[in-house]
């Protein structure tokens, strides 16, 4: 297996490499890439966004001198001060609600929700207020608010710390929902999300915070809402987002040993979904498996299965199959490996698809 899933918190290095402010500045600053863990790449992306636009603010619990429980905002308070990095009272609705007011005032708040399972006290402000502000103002205001949510399992943590609630937000008109799978995307997608005039729910796959990957500072290479083929193949297509992409790549590697060629697509954006690469791939392979950590019922995977069936029915040689977390509360960590889709569970679905 080319990549292993990290299950323990590792101590992060404190130094963030200098990052060129823009492509123009890159000619003066020769550092064109760095090998960074996603947490550091996100940190560099946040820092760059703050340097680029003085209206960008950080808000959240413990994000100041501590740098957040995952250290994603580490160093930002020291560099930008109290007025740009706001340690807030412990109230998620308060964080999102005041961010809306700040956005009405012209700021671009980036709110950290400490853990996936803690977003629900702020759910009303996100779904009933933030998502609709522009619409009910008849286009007279923008809501450039980013809600950062560390999400997903594989970290062996306690209840409400391993959830994947992205479907709730993807279901809500007015929100954009994205999730990077690797440090390079994390760096760029964070900056693009902050630059967006729409609210973006930014799901950070916390099991991927620590593995390193190359971040190329010159250009993102792909728009925020584009999906991407991350491994080419011909026999079957598998699609996922966030931490699941690593699992899918591992599955494809295992399948290759057995002579099965799998194409892997990183969704990157959950709302909107970029169907182009998925449909193109399905036209080629005729087999599609969608994988996610989230519960399967009424999920992102369900939506993709329905849409691909509607649009590529005659190219499909098998039903679109879903691999998901079970429709139970996220279980005690001791049994999470049985709950979370593994490479083998993905391949079991691929085998079923190919057997049609």
């Amino acid at each position, binding site marked *: 297996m080319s990549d292993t899933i990290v299950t323990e918190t590792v101590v992060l290095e404190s130094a963030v490499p200098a990052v060129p402010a823009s492509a123009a500045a890159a000619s003066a600053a020769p550092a064109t890439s760095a090998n960074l863990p996603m947490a550091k790449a996100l940190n560099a992306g946040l820092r760059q966004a703050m340097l680029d636009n003085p209206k960008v603010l950080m808000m959240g619990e413990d994000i100041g001198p501590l740098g957040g429980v995952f250290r994603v905002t580490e160093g930002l308070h020291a560099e930008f001060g109290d007025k740009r990095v706001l340690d807030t009272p412990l*109230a998620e609705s308060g964080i999102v609600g005041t961010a809306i007011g700040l956005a009405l005032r012209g*700021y671009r708040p980036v709110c950290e929700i400490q853990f996936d399972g803690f977003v629900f006290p702020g759910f009303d402000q996100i779904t009933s207020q933030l998502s609709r502000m522009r619409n009910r103002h008849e286009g007279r205001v923008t809501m450039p608010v980013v809600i950062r949510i560390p999400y997903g399992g594989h970290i062996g943590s306690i209840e409400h710390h391993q959830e994947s609630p992205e479907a709730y937000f993807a279901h809500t008109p007015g929100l954009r929902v994205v999730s990077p799978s690797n440090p390079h995307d994390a760096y760029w997608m964070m900056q693009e999300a902050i630059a967006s005039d729409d609210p973006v729910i930014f799901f950070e796959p916390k099991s991927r915070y620590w593995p390193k990957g190359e971040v190329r500072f010159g250009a993102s290479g792909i728009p925020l809402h584009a999906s991407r083929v991350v491994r080419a193949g011909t026999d079957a297509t598998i699609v996922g987002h966030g931490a699941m992409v690593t699992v899918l790549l591992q599955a494809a590697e295992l399948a290759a040993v057995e002579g099965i060629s799998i194409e892997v697509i990183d969704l990157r954006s959950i709302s909107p979904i970029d169907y182009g690469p998925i449909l193109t791939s399905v036209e080629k392979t005729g087999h599609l498996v969608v994988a996610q950590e989230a519960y399967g019922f009424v999920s992102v995977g369900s939506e993709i299965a329905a849409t691909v069936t509607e649009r590529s029915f005659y190219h499909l040689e098998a039903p679109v199959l879903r691999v998901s977390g079970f429709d139970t509360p996220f279980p005690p960590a001791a049994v999470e490996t049985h709950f979370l889709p593994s490479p083998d569970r993905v391949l079991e679905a691929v085998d079923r698809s190919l057997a049609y």
Partner: protein
Amino acid sequence: MAASENDSPLVQVLSTSGLVEPSEAAAEFMPYLDRLTEDDLRRFYRDMVVVRRFDKEAANLQRQGQLALWVPSHGQEAAQVGSAYATRPQDHVFPSYREHVVGMIRGLDLVDILRMLRGVTLGGWNPEEHGNFHLYTLVLASQTLHATGYAMGMQLDGTTATGNPETDEAVIVYYGDGASSQGDANEALVFAASYQTPQVFFLQNNHWAISVPVTRQSRTPLYLRAGGFGMPGTQVDGNDVLASYAVTAKHLDDARAGKGPALIEAMTYRVGAHTTADDPTKYRDPEELAAWVAKDPIVRFRAYLQGLGVEQDFLDAVDEEAEDHAADVRRRALEIRSPERSVIFDNVYAEPHPLIQEQKAWLDRYEASFEGGDA
């Protein structure tokens, strides 16, 4: 802090018969009344009468099927007029959904409020062009947090607490006794106190949240909650327009001067129904209603003006203006037209979104597929 230890904390300037008989708690607020000219006083009266008549017209429009719903403000005019006149042009106002006359005073055309209740828009006006009077918010207390965030923005911008009252900004947010139970109202007070925002929380205690009395919301007078959050709280007679003005003027002045947020509880009464869909006779004691009607804010202020020697011609002219205004509102309300169906898709996102674009195009094709359908 207004006499929270006092036996009689209520700030009252006018007796129910319209005589200037300030309560003990009113003493610190009385100097703010020196700012008012007789023209101001006439305007207070005029606005209260005009909006009461407007309110009746809007309820009639609803009964005649011209509005989906109406939200009466009858009885709360003094709290709203007094507080609204204490704002300055640079201030921002975050209403709940019953503050019609506050909007009018900030420059809003009241017909714009009817647009939402006629079902042609989810908003209705541009706050920037109407005295920074923000949109109505229907989920109780949500706007308290927006107001607090906005006030935090003023602090970050450095446009408040500079020492210049002509330019220093503040926020006033309106909510009610029912909304005071919401988590958001309490989180807004926490954030406001924590960041010391330039902000006044104006809580209209109209005693009823649809059918639920304020006694179900709180075992303590609501203004006393302010102390628990670490800010001053003042209870004012909300049917006394002068007291409402003076208390709000002081707390907004303090907010602009960098002294932080405050909470005002304006004691008033929802004389009408919660909305036109409500029937208060099912749950309210008629004697309670009668007792509050006897404290009517307009009757009281008219008696005060008459005591000042304001001529009957003025009072009659105001009644006439209110009639004319109501007739004009009715005429223009009936002229409100439905928007194009494209409004479904407009402004859901600021930037292009493929799903919305596809669905809009599909609906256009679908509608066009019918005989006589428009593309």
